[in-house]
């Protein structure tokens, strides 16, 4: 197991297990709409003292054309939900099912975070827009589910890194360092 070092100490960088927490989020979503399905799930990479939340997941429903649901698992264990209104019809995607992904979040983070990524987090301890997201890479049917690690500083100059790995095999599909768009 790779030992990940967080920004300013010898602590191991760890994130919650999506698999362990997903059922609670899905339960909350089912109260919104019984046909709710998982569109993506996202875990902030802890940089500062407090992350915005532990896990967030977005849910769509085939019966809801102009709203979707965001569900948050907070640090204190509570679950909050927020209806997100849509001004255009919801982009319906293929649901992410349990058997669409095998790597859990922590394992995915350890694969996706390379030395350059660790260095980025060391240099940007408040990289509050860094996250690991489980999402279908494309919108066409059968599109693979990936873990997508985005390292980014919300308030910085827009330098970061995006890494996509296959959520089943752990294969690194792409890794790009990005900079602010130039004119």
């Amino acid at each position: 197991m790779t030992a990940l070092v967080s920004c300013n100490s010898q602590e191991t960088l760890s994130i919650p297990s999506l698999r362990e927490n997903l059922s609670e989020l899905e339960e909350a979503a089912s109260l919104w709409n019984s046909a709710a399905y998982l569109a993506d799930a996202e875990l902030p990479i802890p940089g500062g003292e407090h992350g915005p939340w532990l896990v967030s997941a977005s849910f769509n429903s085939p019966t809801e054309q102009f709203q979707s649901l965001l569900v948050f698992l907070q640090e204190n264990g509570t679950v909050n939900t927020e209806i997100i209104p849509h001004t255009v019809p919801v982009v319906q995607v293929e649901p992410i099912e349990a058997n669409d992904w095998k790597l859990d979040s922590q394992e995915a983070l350890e694969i996706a975070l390379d030395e350059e990524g660790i260095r980025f987090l060391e240099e940007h301890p408040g990289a509050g827009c860094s996250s690991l997201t489980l999402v279908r890479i494309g919108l066409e049917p059968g599109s693979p589910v990936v873990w997508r690690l985005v390292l980014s500083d919300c308030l910085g100059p827009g330098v970061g890194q995006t890494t996509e790995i296959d959520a089943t095999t752990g294969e690194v599909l792409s890794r790009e360092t990005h900079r602010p768009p130039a004119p």
Partner: protein
Amino acid sequence: MVELKEAAVTAPPRPSLRSRSADGATARFACILLRTYPQGGSLRLISVAAHGLPAIALLVTASQAGCRFEPDLVPLEIPTAPPSAFGGSLDESAASVEAPEAGMERLLDELLDPFNMPLGMTYIGSVHEAADEVLAGAYAYYGYDLEELAASRQDNPLTEEMFRDYLERQGVRWITDPHTNEQFDVYAWLVQDRGVEARGAIHPEVLEQLPGIDAENIMNYERNYLHALYSAHPVVVQRVRYRIANDLLELYGNDAAAVFEHLQKLDLVGTGD
């Protein structure tokens, strides 16, 4: 097990300035907006307080700046009317008292609005709005459905050259500014607009979260396209919004002035003015 109360819809986890205020200190802050126009300039000082201090706005007009003292002339004393409030009328935003939380929310809304203009400049009814409406026509001209492109998370297929060709072939490159009656170059607006120059630090954060979208492709920041992306993927926008708010609170704690100042700086980035 999720309790019904917790899972009940409409409980957004909004980061709160006050929630970080351990000592209950009064949070107050002020900002100075300096606008320059061809006709002159205005300085607006807005003081915003958490506990009801009235907003103050000071407008210095070009005509006032032109006054000079003439030592050879005997001053003529003429009864004057009661002084007006700092020589000018105030717009609604200046006249209202705004709490730090509300100010932060408003600025976040503005920063994440693809059609936002920097420095509080009005977009609705402006020549910039008219120019963007012209530019929006290019997508249909080339056979693209803006909403469909954005929904399917594709990069903007239009290039600057395609926009220029469209504008020239349609004879709409130059439009009349409804306020000044001067001619306005729509293509120059496309090229120079901060939307194409980078859009500061905020919008790339959103685009980076969208698989398939290249955050370094400047054409994805064309205002109509960015708006279409935001409309198709509001969940992503909302997450980024919360994260930015959280990051600001991590950075500045309950220093509302610092938070506000930081957001103001973001609003100035890449204005291209």
